[in-house]
């Protein structure tokens, strides 16, 4: 048997040498530690009676109330509600493809950025599992959604009134949630749907929204060489090759003119042009966003794309251009593959085509194409293929002097009610 040291002890049952911390001897299968026998305190009858009597009284009153008053159903993520015609399974979900209730929605958010996402109410017949949304809608008097409490502070949540939505034709009610994380800390809020039925019943459904700060990695020209397209490409290659890079990579570009082609690959990278008084960041060559499956969006902001033919920004993965200028190109912004592309506050001037949507697959991540100016293009917008039937909303956008304003080849639903055509 091994010699004893100060870190050892002997099993009192079989004499085996054990580590000092051992609570059990595996050689004789006996415990070697002291154990406390814990048991909840015996029931105090007097105390119990004192507690139970009022409870029973209240319970009796409550039972009487329930027999004569409308019911209130509550649940988190899901609830079963019965009326005279049957039982319904109501549940909240976060995407059209998911048919499962969700109790919690976790999102990463860059601090200060505004996001929007849907919360879908589905209604199934509890017995057959089939969709019962249409029949259930008939029974609703009023439905509201709100965020009554926000935990942790540092975040804003608002939501639209639940209503049918064109992007989710099979879903009876949808509320769109706008959220912004304002501090570098996790924040959460409970969203509560209140459904008042015509028969006086009330259904309350809750879901938690939890926002986590998106870790960011920022690159500035004073820290990293990015004075030429080659240097910038080398930086992008290095970031793409990193084993575990931060999810949100921001490159703040200097006021320079980059020529030649730049390729974004491997992961989403955000490029921010110069907004100081020293001039603008200009690209005279193309930027190509290669196909990826991760769904992250590459943001391009405050950049001037000044070309002489070709495609300014070609995206096979999600991309969004904000406050950018596209001028002198065969095509300004081109989306293909699984890309969802957006332009917000951009100017498309003197291009063959300003914005060309030609993506076969993918999911929508934004419906707004607001505050753009499409001026003197051959065709301002070509919609050849657009994934999903989401209505594209051109609110605040101006179409002026184009050969064709919108070539909607795929018949995409559009909201042009607040666009301006001059």
């Amino acid at each position, binding site marked *: 048997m091994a010699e004893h040291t100060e870190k050892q002890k002997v099993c009192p049952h079989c004499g085996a040498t054990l580590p000092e*911390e051992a609570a*059990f001897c595996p*050689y004789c299968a006996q415990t070697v530690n002291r*154990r*406390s026998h814990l048991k909840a305190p015996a029931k105090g009858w007097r105390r119990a009676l004192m507690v*139970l009597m009022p409870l029973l009284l209240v319970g009796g009153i*409550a039972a009487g109330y329930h027999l004569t008053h409308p019911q209130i159903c509550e*649940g988190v993520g899901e609830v079963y509600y019965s009326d005279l015609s049957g039982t319904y399974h109501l549940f909240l979900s976060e995407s059209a493809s998911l048919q499962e209730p969700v*109790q919690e929605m976790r999102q990463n958010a860059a601090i200060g950025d505004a996001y929007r996402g849907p919360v879908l109410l589905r209604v199934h017949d509890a017995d057959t599992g089939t969709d019962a949304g249409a029949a259930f809608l008939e029974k609703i008097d009023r439905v509201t959604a709100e965020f009554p409490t926000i935990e942790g502070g540092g975040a804003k949540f608002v939501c639209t009134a639940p209503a049918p939505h064109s992007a989710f034709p099979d879903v009876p009610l949808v509320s769109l949630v706008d959220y912004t994380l304002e501090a570098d800390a996790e924040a959460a809020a409970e969203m509560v749907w209140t459904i008042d039925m015509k028969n006086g019943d009330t259904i309350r459904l809750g879901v938690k929204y939890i926002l986590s700060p998106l870790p960011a990695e920022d690159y500035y020209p004073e820290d990293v060489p990015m004075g030429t397209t080659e240097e910038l490409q080398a930086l992008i290659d290095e970031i793409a090759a990193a084993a575990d890079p931060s999810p949100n990579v921001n490159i703040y570009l200097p006021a320079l003119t980059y020529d030649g082609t730049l390729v974004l690959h491997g992961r989403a990278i955000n490029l921010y042009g110069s907004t100081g008084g020293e001039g603008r960041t200009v690209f005279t060559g193309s930027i190509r966003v290669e196909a990826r499956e991760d769904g992250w969006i590459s943001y391009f902001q405050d950049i001037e794309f000044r070309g002489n033919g070709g495609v300014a920004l070609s995206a096979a993965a999600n991309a969004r251009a904000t406050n950018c200028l596209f001028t002198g190109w065969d095509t300004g912004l081109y989306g293909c593959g699984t890309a969802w592309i957006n332009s917000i506050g951009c100017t498309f001037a003197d291009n063959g085509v300003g914005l060309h949507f030609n993506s076969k697959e993918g999911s929508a991540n934004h419906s707004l194409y607001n505050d753009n100016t499409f001026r003197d293009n051959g065709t301002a917008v070509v919609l050849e293929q657009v994934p999903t039937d989401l209505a594209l909303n051109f609110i605040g956008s101006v179409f002026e002097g184009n050969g064709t304003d919108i070539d909607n080849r795929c018949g995409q639903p559009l909201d042009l009610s607040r666009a301006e055509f001059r």
Partner: protein
Amino acid sequence: MITQTGRKNNKLPASFGRKFWGGGREDVYDWLREALEREFEVVRPLKEGPRGTIRLLRHRETGRRFVLRQYAGSAEVYRRLRDVQCEHLPQVYEVATRGEDNLVLEEYVQGDTLDCVLRGGLCSPRETRRIARQVCQALWVLHSLGAVHRDVKPENILLRGREAVLIDFDAARLHKPAQDTDTQVLGTTGFAAPEQYGLSQTDGRADIYAMGILINVMRTGQHPSRKLAPGHLGRVVERCTQMMPQKRYPNVLRLMEAL
């Protein structure tokens, strides 16, 4: 690895007592693993999942059966249970940790799960109260140790004769009042309390929520929003399953009194 058909060998290796004992928990891990390999054999796997495995072992010398859990995560709750005894909790014999990996050797409780029993029929009000009280006893011990079970459901309750034993503390965690948020979302959909999915600190009242669902399922087989247990038990269920934790029973003793 523990072998399925390891040959019986009670001899200790020459290095035993020197190689593995440095005094730290990781050394106990190595020691326990080796000792288990030598002194026990695997009877059969009980459960395998992404977070670990549970196996039924037999002590070669005595023939006694034990459950060995190997899983990644925190073992702090098991470590606290190692020093206590309660007839409604399995006895935890040994706990060893290396990094994120844990070995937990515990009592093998022979019996059917409540889930299995409920498939054969619902519980009477009397049975429901008895089982619920016993599970509350187990929860009282856990809560007294500063822990929350977080996964109270029929599959995690074994019926050993007339005794209910609450098992599976893999989802359990210690309640730290100063902590803002749980680090992981665990639990079983339908049985987990609302705050368990969110930022509110999970405390003992999350288990009270799950107790409410459990009591209702024992009586009706269904979630309370679908069919509430009749009578007094239904009212207990309603109180347990209030959305706001403050409106539930403040602790399991109060729930036991109500039962």
